[in-house]
């Protein structure tokens, strides 16, 4: 079915393609959560696509709307001058009289402008005409139908308490989205949830929304990510560490997520960097490092200590380092950023160094952690990347992961460790799990030389 794009970042994604033309969408939520802004953005985006819009407001002064919109870079006054927009401050009874009557002023105005999108802000005011549900429902129904018959797509806002039973409005509209406040980590943020859509699918659940300088952006909590024409990588991506590659039969299958765990100082960052470096230099692939724990400087210094000039690769466009201070990281935004980076660069190998700081703001909420790791993995899988998710464990324990959730979610687990033998400390690597790939089990010795990691495996155990 043909759908029209709302043009609002992320909204068309969660609406699985947008709205059906000549349908009605209800935006409900408590005061101040962005209902009007979302509605205005829908109108503005229509105007930008050449579709004239009409805003009918029962409570907001047009003056205030101009100012608010201007903050997002939308010059509503200019749009009005160009006859692409009309903002009408009025009352429900006027709308009733002049929209439903064929010679009504608003009726004529709509015809004259060729309006394609209408925002009614807000329908809560219709109770001024009557408090009775039956007539109210009938009134709303006829209003929406009158607009639909003119091939107009309508959005209506509705003031709503935090917990309210579904009301009659919900039966007369085609789709409903709910805006609300949510405690997300430490801070209170706004969320959006599609309650229903008629005639097309949507992504259920609450999605995080943010007010950016260009309007509202929705960060879809997306579990199924579709990437058109994912990069056709080789059958497997070698790490370039010969012993490790032998352990797994030559390399890692594209789209495999690997939990890289081990105590501090066991070489996790080095292993991931070396794999990325080798993949770029030896196989001409691209790589991205999503850094949240350490500083970019220290990681680049570590790499150059092994003779890996990541800066040079970055200049050549093969490597990208995306750094965020984890205390300020917004995970939903970051996940969207990751998706965009992957779409742009199409890397074969990515590394998340490290996972716990990236998930820091989830406050150990295990449900959310599971969800986010799942989401990350799906993202990397959709882009066919070999991904290393680095997790630090405690020395001398059998702990594999930080949260106890990651091991089940990742396709593979590689554990780095070190143990004391007499007066020397020996490093080891173990491919603990690797889905759909033959691999050597048990610990294998390794060390870290001036040139990086060497894995002391000479057999052919991983051969398919």
């Amino acid at each position, binding site marked *: 079915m043909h759908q029209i794009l709302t043009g609002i970042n992320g909204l068309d994604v969660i609406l699985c393609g947008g709205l059906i033309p000549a349908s009605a969408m209800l935006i409900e939520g408590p005061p101040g959560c962005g209902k009007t802004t979302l509605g205005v953005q829908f109108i503005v985006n229509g105007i930008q696509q050449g579709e004239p819009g009409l805003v009918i407001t029962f409570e907001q002064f047009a003056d205030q709307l101009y100012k608010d919109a201007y903050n997002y870079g939308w010059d509503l006054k200019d749009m009005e001058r160009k006859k692409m927009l009309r903002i009408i401050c009025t009352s429900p009874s006027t709308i009733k009289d002049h929209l439903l009557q064929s010679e009504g002023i608003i009726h004529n105005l709509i015809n004259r402008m060729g309006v394609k999108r209408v925002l009614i802000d807000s329908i809560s005011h219709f109770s001024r005409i009557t408090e009775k549900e039956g007539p109210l429902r009938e009134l709303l129904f006829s209003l929406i139908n009158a607009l639909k018959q003119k091939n107009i797509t309508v959005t209506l806002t509705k003031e709503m308490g935090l917990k309210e039973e579904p009301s009659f409005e919900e039966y007369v509209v085609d789709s409903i989205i709910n805006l609300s406040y949510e405690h997300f980590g430490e801070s209170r943020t706004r969320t959006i949830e599609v309650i229903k859509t008629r005639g097309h699918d949507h992504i259920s659940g609450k999605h995080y929304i943010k007010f950016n300088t260009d309007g509202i952006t929705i960060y879809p909590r997306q579990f199924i990510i579709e990437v058109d024409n994912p990069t056709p990588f080789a059958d497997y991506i070698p790490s370039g560490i010969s*012993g490790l590659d032998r352990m797994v039969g030559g390399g890692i299958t594209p789209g495999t997520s690997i939990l890289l765990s081990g105590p501090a100082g066991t070489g996790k960052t080095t292993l991931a960097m070396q794999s990325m470096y080798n993949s770029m230099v030896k196989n001409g692939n691209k790589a991205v490092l999503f850094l949240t724990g350490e500083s970019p400087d220290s990681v680049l210094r570590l790499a150059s200590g092994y003779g890996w000039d990541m800066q040079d690769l970055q200049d050549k466009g093969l490597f990208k380092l995306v750094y965020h201070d984890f205390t300020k990281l917004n995970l939903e935004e970051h996940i969207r950023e990751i998706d965009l980076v992957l779409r742009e660069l199409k890397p074969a190998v990515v590394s998340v160094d490290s996972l716990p700081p990236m998930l820091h703001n989830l406050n150990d909420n295990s449900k959310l952690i599971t969800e986010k790791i799942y989401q990350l993995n799906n993202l990397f899988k959709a882009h066919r990347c070999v991904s290393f998710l680095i997790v630090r464990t405690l020395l001398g324990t059998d702990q594999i992961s930080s949260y106890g959730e990651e091991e089940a979610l990742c396709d593979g687990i590689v554990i780095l460790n070190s143990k004391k*033998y007499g007066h020397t400390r020996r490093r080891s690597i173990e491919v603990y799990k690797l889905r759909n790939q033959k691999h050597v089990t048990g610990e294998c010795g390794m060390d870290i*030389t001036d040139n990086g990691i060497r894995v002391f495996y000479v057999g052919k155990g991983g051969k398919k």
Partner: protein
Amino acid sequence: MQELEVVRFGLLDGIVKNSLPYRTTWQLRGESGTGKSTFAFQFTMGGLRRGESVIYLACDTPVRNLRNDFTSFGFVISQYEEAGQLKFVESYESEESGVDFIKDASDVQEFIYVLAQLIDQMAKPCRVIIDSMTAVAVNYSTQDLVAMVHEKNRLLRKEGVVMLDLYLKGTLEETGMYGLANAYDVCIDLYYPEEKGGVPQRNMRVHKIRSTDFDPRPFPFSIRTGQGLVVDKKFYSR
């Protein structure tokens, strides 16, 4: 079927009935001063002169000393080293720059890995000499050593590769030595026989050769600069 490539080593001609193929492991045992290193040098030079490559793992002494030893025996090796035909590996105290090394000889996995990597890199045929296993053995119990050697030989036994391991006799338990011999295709002893008066004469005796006949009797030999061991093969026919 392709003709099996054989290890050319004149020293054993006449004592061993048929030529020995590659993909074999050799054990050379001997007391101190019996000429093990000279035997190894000769084995090295034999390969190099035939255009084969050689990996020489120095465990008892730094590589720079070893180079001098080659020279003092009249063997010139610099051109082979420059050409990359001869590769020294060190497993002895601090690492000399430019020389491959094994950091921790007591780490079986590293030990085998470093050699395997080098073997992969070198042209075939290739002779691999470990001088000596005794230095490595001090890190292990006899039982672990036997297991380690078996593991090493299993993993490194490759087409076009012959391995020669030197052992200082008398440092390992006899029972252990027996277990070790099982890991080798060729076992050769160098020793001084019990003195019967006069100048002590060094002897070489082939102990074991898998799948070919050999003369098990001891043969006296002398050491000559530029040649190495010179075995008196006519000793019994005189």
